[in-house]
Structure formats: C-alpha cells, structure tokens
C-alpha cells in the first residue's frame, strides 16, 4: 500500500467547520479510554482525531456517525479538545458538502424535521394533540411559562407519558403556563450534532421567532437536548428567553413549599444522569434532590454517575440511527440497575426513556424494573 499523504486542505475545512481544537490533540488516548462504545465494540476517537489532524479522514467511514456526543471524552481530555465539535464538523462536511453518504435512517429523520418539524414525520398540526384531554391552555401573551414539548413526548406513543405527567404536575401546582402546539418545531439540537447546520439554523430561527411573537419569556423543558440548545446555542442566534429544565423547576417548587407530596413511593430508585443534563450542563443535584424529596424513595447511584455517567446511546442523532442489538451500551446500564436491585430506573430525558424502554424490551426484563421519568414519579406522589 502506498503511504498516505497528509492533506492540509482537509484539515483547513474541518477547522473552518468548527473543529479547530483538533489541532491541539496530543494523542494521549484518554478519549478512547473513556468512550462508552468500547464497552461494546471498538471505536477509537483518538485515532479519528489524528486522522483528522493529518487530513486523512475517509468521509465514507461509518464511524463518523458513531459518536453519541455524550461528552465523556471531552470532559477528560487534558488538552481541551472539543471532540464533539470536531466530529460535528466532519459530519457537516458530509451533510452539507455532500462528500459522502449520510446514513439512511438519519437522513429520513432529518428530512422529516426539515419538512414537518418532527423526526417522526407526523403532521405538524398534531403537535399539540397529546394534551387534548388535559385542559392545557395555549400560550398567550402574558402567560408566565411556556412548556415546550420535545418531539419525542409530543409524538411517541410511549414517551408521551412524560408530557402528560409534566402538565399533570403543573396543573396541580397551579402555575400559569401554556403550550405552543403547532407553532413550535423541533429544537434542532441533534440535527446540528448530526452535521445539518443549515436545517438547524432554520429550526432555531423559526422557534425564536415563534417564541418572540407569542411573548415567551421563560420556557420549561423535559429534554436536556432542548435545554442545551436553548441555553447555549439559541442566544447566539438572537434568542432572549430564559430556559429551565423541569428538574430545576421541581426542585425550586419543592424548596419554596409550593409542591407538597401526599403519598409515599416505597421503592428503590436509581437515577441515570443524562449526558446533556449532567456533563454538558452540570445539572446533577436538582434531579437527585427532587427524587429524595419524594416520601419513601430510596435513592441509589450507579457505579459511574454524575460526571462519569455512561451515555444511553441516544445523543448526536444516534436516537434516529440503528444500533445493532449487541452494541447497545444502555443494555449494560440497565443490567447494572437490575443487578443493584433497583425497582425503578429514573430518567430525566426523553431520549434516555426511549433508549431504555427499548433495552428493557430487548433484554426481556420488564417484570423486574420500571423506567420512569422523574415527572412521573413526582406526579404519583402528589
């Protein structure tokens, strides 16, 4: 085989696409040692960084789509390399410049989002249907809080329970809130992570405009992905609203005495830190405090938790991509929870719920453990 020739142009493109920190990688291998993929298969982010440094990236390599953007590597990288940005940049080169093929399932989901604002390809006008029987009022100017519903709970029949539990709590507490229904579209976080910058920008600008037109000042979300992009990416595009994750809101309400429990849940509950709530936004304590406030709950921890939490595998667009059965690391997480003797695996992210629900089915342990969002648990105990 003739030797590969480093190519500066490719490096320059990746840099321009936002992957500039790849230059400072010094090949220590910490990322490869950290990446959860290596629990189930070989995946070498270090080598990918080095290939990219030399401009020797094969854009046809399927592994460019493997990263779940969980951030486990980036928080440990001694050099401060933003791998997620580097991988996003490479995906951008593929998606936007068409130098290689985007995986089919991802392409379809993104296309759906671009056409109808949700990955499932459901009609836009149905976005608010989940709330029909719950007496939720549409957001009107002057309403205090917008409950922005992530596409997954809005359209997925199983995950819908998160949205229903959320409004159940909000109704009971008596907060002045509303929903935008068909006026809102996908937040675009995973769209961006999968390299589709243009579509992301459109989505974001659309949402910003819709929020502004309705006079939205404060938004509560279930999904850490929505939280992340609203908090960290939308402001650059002109957003001025404040965003709060449901766990933060619940924590605040409990502390202010506005949310009081009347029932006991006598269960062992193990909490899974979602990557985008934990590592990406360092919200570790609020969800734990909420769970601990529920009478009877015995809170348990995974061996790897908080900053070291192991990804469910759903980030970075992976939620829309097929993962072979034997390569799902959320299976391992679930097994750990079962082995630890937990009755409930508590999540705080719709992606996590989707992934863990799937795992539960595939490993066939439905009778041993339940997957619940913290909103569900809170509502049960009210």
């Amino acid at each position, binding site marked *: 085989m003739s*030797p590969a020739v480093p190519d*500066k142009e490719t490096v320059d493109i990746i*840099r321009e696409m936002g992957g500039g920190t790849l*230059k*400072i990688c010094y090949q220590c291998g910490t990322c490869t040692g950290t990446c959860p993929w290596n629990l189930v298969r070989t995946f070498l982010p270090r*080598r990918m960084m*080095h290939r990219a*440094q030399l401009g*020797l990236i094969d854009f046809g390599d399927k592994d460019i789509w493997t990263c779940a953007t969980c951030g486990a590597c980036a928080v440990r990288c001694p050099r401060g390399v933003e791998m997620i940005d580097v991988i996003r940049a490479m995906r951008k080169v593929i998606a936007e410049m068409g130098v290689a093929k985007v995986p089919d399932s991802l392409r379809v989901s993104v296309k759906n989002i671009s056409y109808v604002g949700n990955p499932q390809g459901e009609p836009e006008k149905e976005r608010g249907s989940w709330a029909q029987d719950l007496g939720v009022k549409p957001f009107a100017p002057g309403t205090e809080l917008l409950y922005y519903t992530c596409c997954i709970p809005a359209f997925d029949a199983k995950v819908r329970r998160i949205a229903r539990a959320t409004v159940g709590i909000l109704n009971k507490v008596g907060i002045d809130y509303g929903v935008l229904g068909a006026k809102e579209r996908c937040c675009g976080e995973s769209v961006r992570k999968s390299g589709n910058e243009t579509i992301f920008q459109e989505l974001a600008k659309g949402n910003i405009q819709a929020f502004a037109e309705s006079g939205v000042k404060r938004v509560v979300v279930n999904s850490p992905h929505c939280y992340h992009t609203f908090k960290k990416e939308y402001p650059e595009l002109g957003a001025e609203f404040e965003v709060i994750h449901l766990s933060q809101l619940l924590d605040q309400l409990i502390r202010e005495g506005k949310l009081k429990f009347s029932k006991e849940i006598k269960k062992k509950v193990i909490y899974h830190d979602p990557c985008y709530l934990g590592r990406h936004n360092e919200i570790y304590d609020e969800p734990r405090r909420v769970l601990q406030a529920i009478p009877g709950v015995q809170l348990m921890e995974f061996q790897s938790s908080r900053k070291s939490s192991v990804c469910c595998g759903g980030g970075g667009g992976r939620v829309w991509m097929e993962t072979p059965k034997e390569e799902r690391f959320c299976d391992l997480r679930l097994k750990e929870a079962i082995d630890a003797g937990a009755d409930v695996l508590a999540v705080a992210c719709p992606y996590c719920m989707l992934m863990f629900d799937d795992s539960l089915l595939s490993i066939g342990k439905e009778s041993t453990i339940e997957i619940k969002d913290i909103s569900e648990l809170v509502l049960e105990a009210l």
Partner: protein
Amino acid sequence: MAKKLGVYICGGCGISDALDVDKLCGVATKEFKVENCKSHPFLCGEEGAKLIAQDIQEGTNTAVIAACSPRAKMDVFNYGPSVYVERVSLREQVAWVHPPKDEDTQMLAEDYLRMGLARAQKAEPPEPFSETIDKTILVVGGGIAGMTSALEAAKAGYNVCLVEKEPSLGGWIAKLRKQYPKHPPYRELEDTGIDACIKELEGNSKIKVFTGAEIEKIEGAPGMYNVSLRQKGAATSLKIGSIVQATGFKPYDPGKLEYLGYGKYKDVITNVQMEEMAQKGKITRPSDGQEVSSVAFIQCAGQRDPAHLAYCSAFCCMTSLKQALYVTGQNPDAQVYIFYKDMRTPGQYEDFYKRVQEEPGVFLAKGDVKGISEEGGKVTVEVYDVLLGENIAVNVDLVVLAAGIVSNSMPEVAPKVEAVTPDGEKKVTEIVSDSGRYATPALHLQYRQGPEIPTLKYGFPDSHFICFPYETRRTGIYAAGCVRQPEDIAASMDDAAGAALKAIQCVEQTARGQAVHPRTWDKSYPSLFMQRCTQCKRCTEECPFGMYNEDDKFNPLPNPTRCRRCGICMGSCPERIISFKDYSVDIISSMLKVIQVPEPDEEKPRVVAFLCENDAYPALDMAGINRITYNPFIRVIPVRCLGSVNIVWIADSLSKGIDGILMIGCKHGDDYQCHFVKGSELASTRMGKVQETLQRLVLESERIRVEEISISEFKKIPQIFDEFMEKIKSVGPNPYKEM
C-alpha cells in the same frame, strides 16, 4: 594533653527501666578505672547538663555520654572544640529495641560502654587544617551557564575570574535567533537576552573576564589553587579558591546520521544549521537557495538510540517547535511536519507545544522514519505513524534533523595509554570514563589521578546524582550547564546558580578548616605516619577525590583541602598509617578488643556490624525510634564510609573469636548512592578478597557479609541482622574462640 575522663550515664527515656545502671557504672569504674562516673535520670535536662558542664570546668576534657544516639541532642552535649565527646547509644540501640532487664540486653549495653570508653581513651578532638586561602572563584566557560555562575558569585560578594576560550562570550546562545518562551503565557518566542547579560557581566567590577584564553595548568587544592592561564599568547597566573566548570557541549557529529540522509542530500540539515540560517535571516534550501515552503523535522535524530546517543538531549523537542515557528513566521502558508518518538516538553513548556500545534501549517506525528529519498528536487520522508498504524509520506523542501548533544567533557575518541609489560610487550589500553585522564582537556589539573574530572558512561562529570548533583569528584570543582547534563537555557541558569553557591560554600568551609561536603562540620583530616609508608600507592589510587599527589619516590603528598574525610584511604592502607584524630585503625581496633566474647558453650554468638554513618546508621536509629526489635548479639560500630573499613579490623575480630562480620553501606554500581562515590564499591571488592582468604584459612566465607540499604529502608535492618544471625548459627562458633 593528658586525658581526664568523665562517664555520664543517663537513666531517662526508658534506659533505667531496661538496664541496671549501677552495674553499668561498674564497667567504667572497675574495668576501666575511671574515677568519675555519674548517672542521672534525665541527663539532657538542665540539671544533668550542669552536672557535666561543672566537671568540664574542673578539667574533664573527655566526656563519655551513655544516653541517646550520637545523632540526637547534639546541641546539648556540645562542649566546644577542645572537649572530646563520645556518645554511647543506650537508648536507640539498647533500651528501645531489646527486652528490659534481660541478661543479653545488659551485656549489650556493657559492651557498648566498653567500646565507647576504648574509643574515648584514644580519640582526640580534631584541630582544623588552617592555611591562608584565596576566595576568588574561577569560572571556566563563558556560555550562559558560566556567565550566570560568574554573576551570581559576584552578586554574593566574591571576586570572579571568567575564562572563555573563544574571542567572545555567550557560547551557543549567542548563535540563537530567538529562544523558546521562558515566561507566561509561554506562547511567544523571546530574545535570548545575551547582550544585556554580557553587558552586566562586563560592568561588574568583581568579575574579570578573560576571553580568547585557556587554562594551561591548575596546581594546588581548594582555597589555594594556582591557575596558569594563556590569553592571546600571554601567560597570566591567578590565585583561586574554587572552580565552576561550565564548558558546555558540542552537537552530535551529524556525519553519523547518513541513515537519515545527512551528507547524502543537500536539503537535509541539522537543527544547528537551521538555527544559523534563521539567525542570518532567510530559511532557504541549501541546494538551490529557494525559500522553503515545506519542512519536515525529524526528532531524536540519533538520540535515545544506543547506536548513537543513548540519552535524551532535553531541548531538541522544544527547539524544533521553536524552529517550526521560524518557518511559519517566514511563510504563513508553509507546511511543517514534526515526526517524533515522544514530544518532551516538561512543565510549562507544554503550553508552548500547544501553541505551536495550533499553528494551521504545523502537523505532528509520532512515528519511526522508514525512509528518506530525493526526487524531483524535493525530499520525501516516509514515516510509520505508530498511532495510525500506517505509513505516511511527505514531500518537502527541507528536512531538519533534531540532533542531540555531547558534553564537552566527552573526548572525540577515548584516550589510550601505552605500557610495557614486565615481559617487554607493548600494550595499549583504552582509558575508561571513570578516570581523571578521560575527559577532553579543559582544566589541566596537576593531580596524581589525572588532569580532568572523572566522568560517567557518556562523558558527563561523575556526581552523586540525587543528593549532590553539582559536586564533581574533585572537591572545589563544580560542574554546571550542558557539560554536566543536557539542559536548556533556563535549566543551565539554575544549575549555574547552584554551582556558584557550591563554589562559595567551598571557599568558606575551607577557610574554617572544615570539610566542604558532605561532612560539612568535620574538622578532622587524614595525617600519615610516613616513616612506615611502603609507597604501595593504595591511598593515592583509591581516594575517589584525588586528594593525594605523589613525589618521584611515590610517597603520598596530602592536599587536605581536597579531602572529603571519608576515610577510604585509611581503609585502603595496609600499613595502617593513615589516621584522623578521632577516627583511626587503632581506635576501632581497640573498640573491637574490648568486646566480651562468651565461651562457645554459652551459645551467645557475637557479631560485629560496621554501619555507614550516612544511611545505614541513621536507619538503625529509625528502627530504634520505631521500637523494632532485633538480635542482641550484634555490636554495631558506625563508620564514615564502608570504604574506610580496614581489613585489619576483620582480622582483629576473627582472631578474637567474633563469629561474624556484617557491613551495611549504600548502594554501589551505575546508580550508586554511596556518599563517597566509590566507598561501598571498594568495600565489596575488598571483602570479596577477604572471603577468599578466609576460605584458604578454612574459615567459612559466610562469616562476612556486605549489605546495601538506603536510609528509608530502616525496616530492613532488623531483618538483615536476624538473617545473618541465622546464618552464623548454622555455620557454628568461630573456631578461634577456643585458642
């Protein structure tokens, strides 16, 4: 002066609980007929101290204090230079480590007291060697290390003579365009500051600079060196106290790097040539004078390769990073590749490494060079990228070999000596590095052991790697900068300040008549009873520090200020004529003689253990402090260095019926820990020979054992003791007991 002895036994710290103090007094008064023996329950307290002070006022000039270790309460039991104090360690070596009120414990204490008394009867307080001395410091070599040493010494108030063989000062740093950053945030190149440094140096009235000068001869010893200098043909002589050698480095011979294309392709150059080019202005291709747009650096061009330079040259990684910026600075579109084995950018230099990585045109890869070839006016470098697991290739205008350095002490070729064997044959032998005749001439010392400082395997000066890095094997001569080890400007400057301090310490200690190092307090020095000298040359050859010169009849000529007071010469002398006032063959022999050896049927064997005062003896104290118990049949004698153990002591012990002899010193070999460099090595060679002799005398060689430990391994001492006693038990009693 007539000895007037006082014996003082302390009962504190558990001593009187463990021992019968009155019986102990009896040893002094009855066996040794000492009139004055006192005991006190708390000797180091105010009352106890007064007790001794009172006697001293009344004429007692030798005090045997049987209390704690000689390493404890040194300030309390100090009565000035004219009173000899002998300390008997009843606390750390008896009361704290052996069962109380036990027969063997009492016997041990009594033996120690006897040994202390025997020593005190013979030892005298040392009188310092005094001479008028000169405190001027000579610095040889005017690179950054030499200049810094000179400035530091001058700022501390000392006169300095700086000798540089080139017409101008600066050494290598005068040839650099820029230096890599030394200050936060470690991102931008800096000027070397050489001009300001030279100006400061020349403006300092305490410093005399001799450029274009070389040393012809250095005679004498610390505090009184006579240095002969030749500057532009004219001879000068200087009186010097101590010396800093900062003669720097030379680049590794690039002629040996043909495997990397050097000499084969014009556009393959070294980092030194790159620096020269950069300093002159433009970086161009030697082949056609064109400005370069792509450069490949090859790191470790020979370094860390046993076939070339086995060691790391310390600054070539940083230098290539710096030179990469010269290239991108000249042409922002240029591409620079750095192929490395490991990038070594210690400490904050990491920040600079990162900064260079950020440069869009700079690419780094860890790999092994597979081939270098030339085609179409470009040089192709093929590298196996170990992190990719594949070969990569670059086509560049210029290849820079980041070659390493060699100490200027390292001779081009090892010098040889010719000798005629007794049967008239001519024999040529190569001189080994561990010799004063090996290094490239620089100092021209008039020492019997050779004109230069002894070096190590790769030509760097020998020094105690961990504890005393600047001390060479010649007292009063301190190495700094790249002559000592590969290091960059910042490290050379640190070195230079350290060596200057050492040089100052030398002249000050010498003026006080004290050893410079490591026995800094010691005023004793060896004196020779020349009437009995047989000119065997053992002392002149074995002193690791070249203290003795020799006259034409091979008589040793001592130079006491060169001496480190290790006693190795004393250990070497077969005639036993080398003595210190407070440490001699005779003194230790008399200690051995007073040990009481029980009859064999009592089954109480006796072993003498010689422990090095630097590590093993303090370790024994630590074992005591930690109350680690061990065998009570061992009698410990501290020695200055295992090398000071004279074979006569072995003979004395064995003929007296001692069953075994143990010696514990510091590690020897390449990574030696011996404070006197050669002492423990010499001891083990000598003991090897003794063991052979024993076998000839039909005595078991197992009766003698040499062990090595470091101070932190105190837990091993009791183990060594116990194991050795097991061995002695199995060998059986010394047959000489019955004779």
